[in-house]
C-alpha cells in the first residue's frame, strides 16, 4: 500500500487536525485518547468532511486535493468504512444491508462475493434476520461484511470492538485477523486498546490533539 496523507488541515472544535504521513503497512493503527481527532481523520479520508487543505492519495489515485480542486465524492472513493456505531440500516434485513453496496461486476469477485465474505465472517445464518435482532458481536461482523462487499481498496475501522465486553472482543479479534489475512486489504484501525494493536496492527500512529505524536512499528507485514 502507498497511502499519502499530505498537508491535512481540518479545524475542529478545540484544535486543528494537522497530519502529514505516508502509510505503507497493511494495517495501521490510530491510537490515542478520545477527542484526539481519529474519527475526524477517518471521516475526512472517506470524504464525509471537507478539510481546509489536504492531499489524499491512495495508490496513485487522488481522492482529495484541495489545492487542485479535486474532492472525490464518497460513493466513488471505494473505501469501506465501519463507523463506531456501525450504522447498520435498521429498516433493512441483514441480507439487504449486505447487498446495499455490493458490487458484483468487479474483477475482485469472487474474493468479495457474498458467499465468500459471509463464510469468512460466519454470518450466513443471519442473512434473513433483521439487524435489530442481532447481538453486538453479530452486528459487528455484519457491518464489517457490508463494508467488504463493496470491494474496497481501503478499509476504515473506527473502534470496531469498543462497545463489546472482553469475552466478545476475544471472539471477534480472530475474525478481524481473518479479514486482514484473507482479503489483503490495507486497513486503518482506530482503537484505544493495546491488545488489539498487538493482535492486528503492523504500525501504530499515536495521536493527540489532532497531531501524530509518535509512530512505532509492531509487525513487518507489508503490502
Amino acid at each position: 500500500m502507498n497511502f499519502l496523507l499530505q498537508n491535512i488541515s481540518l479545524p475542529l472544535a478545540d484544535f486543528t487536525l494537522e497530519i502529514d504521513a505516508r502509510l505503507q503497512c497493511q494495517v495501521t493503527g490510530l491510537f490515542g485518547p478520545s477527542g484526539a481527532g481519529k474519527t475526524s481523520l477517518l471521516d475526512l479520508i472517506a470524504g464525509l468532511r471537507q478539510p481546509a487543505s489536504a492531499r489524499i492519495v491512495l495508490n496513485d489515485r487522488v481522492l482529495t486535493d484541495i489545492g487542485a480542486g479535486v474532492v472525490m465524492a464518497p460513493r466513488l472513493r471505494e473505501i469501506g468504512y465501519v463507523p463506531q456505531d456501525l450504522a447498520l440500516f435498521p429498516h433493512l434485513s441483514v441480507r439487504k444491508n449486505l447487498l446495499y453496496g455490493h458490487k458484483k461486476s468487479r474483477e475482485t469477485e469472487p474474493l468479495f462475493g457474498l458467499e465468500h465474505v459471509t463464510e469468512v465472517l460466519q454470518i450466513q445464518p443471519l442473512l434473513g434476520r433483521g439487524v435489530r435482532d442481532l447481538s453486538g458481536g453479530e452486528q459487528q461482523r455484519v457491518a464489517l461484511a457490508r463494508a467488504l462487499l463493496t470491494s474496497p481498496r481501503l478499509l476504515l475501522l473506527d473502534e470496531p470492538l469498543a462497545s463489546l465486553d472482553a469475552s466478545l472482543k476475544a471472539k471477534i479479534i480472530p475474525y478481524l485477523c481473518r479479514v486482514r489475512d484473507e482479503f489483503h486489504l490495507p486497513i486503518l484501525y482506530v482503537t484505544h486498546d493495546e491488545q488489539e494493536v498487538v493482535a492486528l496492527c503492523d504500525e501504530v500512529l499515536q495521536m493527540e490533539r489532532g497531531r501524530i505524536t509518535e509512530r512505532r512499528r509492531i509487525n513487518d507485514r507489508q503490502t
Partner: protein
Amino acid sequence: MTAAEWQIVWFTAWVSALSTLVILPPGLAVAWLLARHEWPGKSLVETVVTLPLVMPPVATGLILLKVFGRHGMGGFLHNRLHLDVVFTWRAVLVALGVMSFPLLVRSARVALEQVNPRFEQIARTLGAGDLRVFFSITIPLALRGIIGGVILAFARALGEFGATIMVAGNIQGRTSTLSLSIYQSWFNGEDTVAYRLLGASVVLAFAAVWTSEWFMRRSRK
C-alpha cells in the same frame, strides 16, 4: 343520507385526499431543505410556510382570491389555458392544499430531523448517490412520521372552512364541502341535515386522527 349529502361527503374526501397528494412532493422537498440544510432566507421561508397556521383562514382565502382572481394569476390561467380556478373545485383544492401545507411540512421536518445523518453518510460510502440515499435511507427511516404528517394534513383539509368559502364559495354540487354544508344547513334551519353531515365529518376526522396517532406511536417505538 340523501344522494346530495353523499355527494358532499365523497367530494370532501376526494378533494382532501387529492390536495394532500398534490402538496406531498413540495412539502417533502421544503421539509428536507429545512431539516438538512442551512441557507440564506431559511428563516423567512420557515415563517412563510407557517403563516397559514396562524393567520385567520379567511385572510388566507382573501389572498388566494386575489392571487387566483382575474386580475392575478387567474387571468393568465384563464387567457392562456382556459382554466378557471376561483369558485370551482380547483379553488377548493388550492385552499385545502395551502391550509394543510404547514402541518405536512412541520411533521415531515421533525421526522427527517430524527433520521441519524450517519446512516446517510455511510450509505454514500457504500456507493449510493444522493437520490438513492434519499429514497432508500432517508424516506424509509422517516416514513412513519411522514405518514403521520400526511394524515394530519388530510384531516386539516377535511375541516377547512374559512379559506375555502372565500376562494371557492359554497356552490351546491360544485364546491360544497362538509364544513360549508354543515354551516349552510344550520343557517337554513335544516338541523337534521346538519346533524347527518356532522356525523359523517366526525367519522372521517376520527378515522384520520386515529390513524395519525397510530403511526406516531409506531414511529416512537
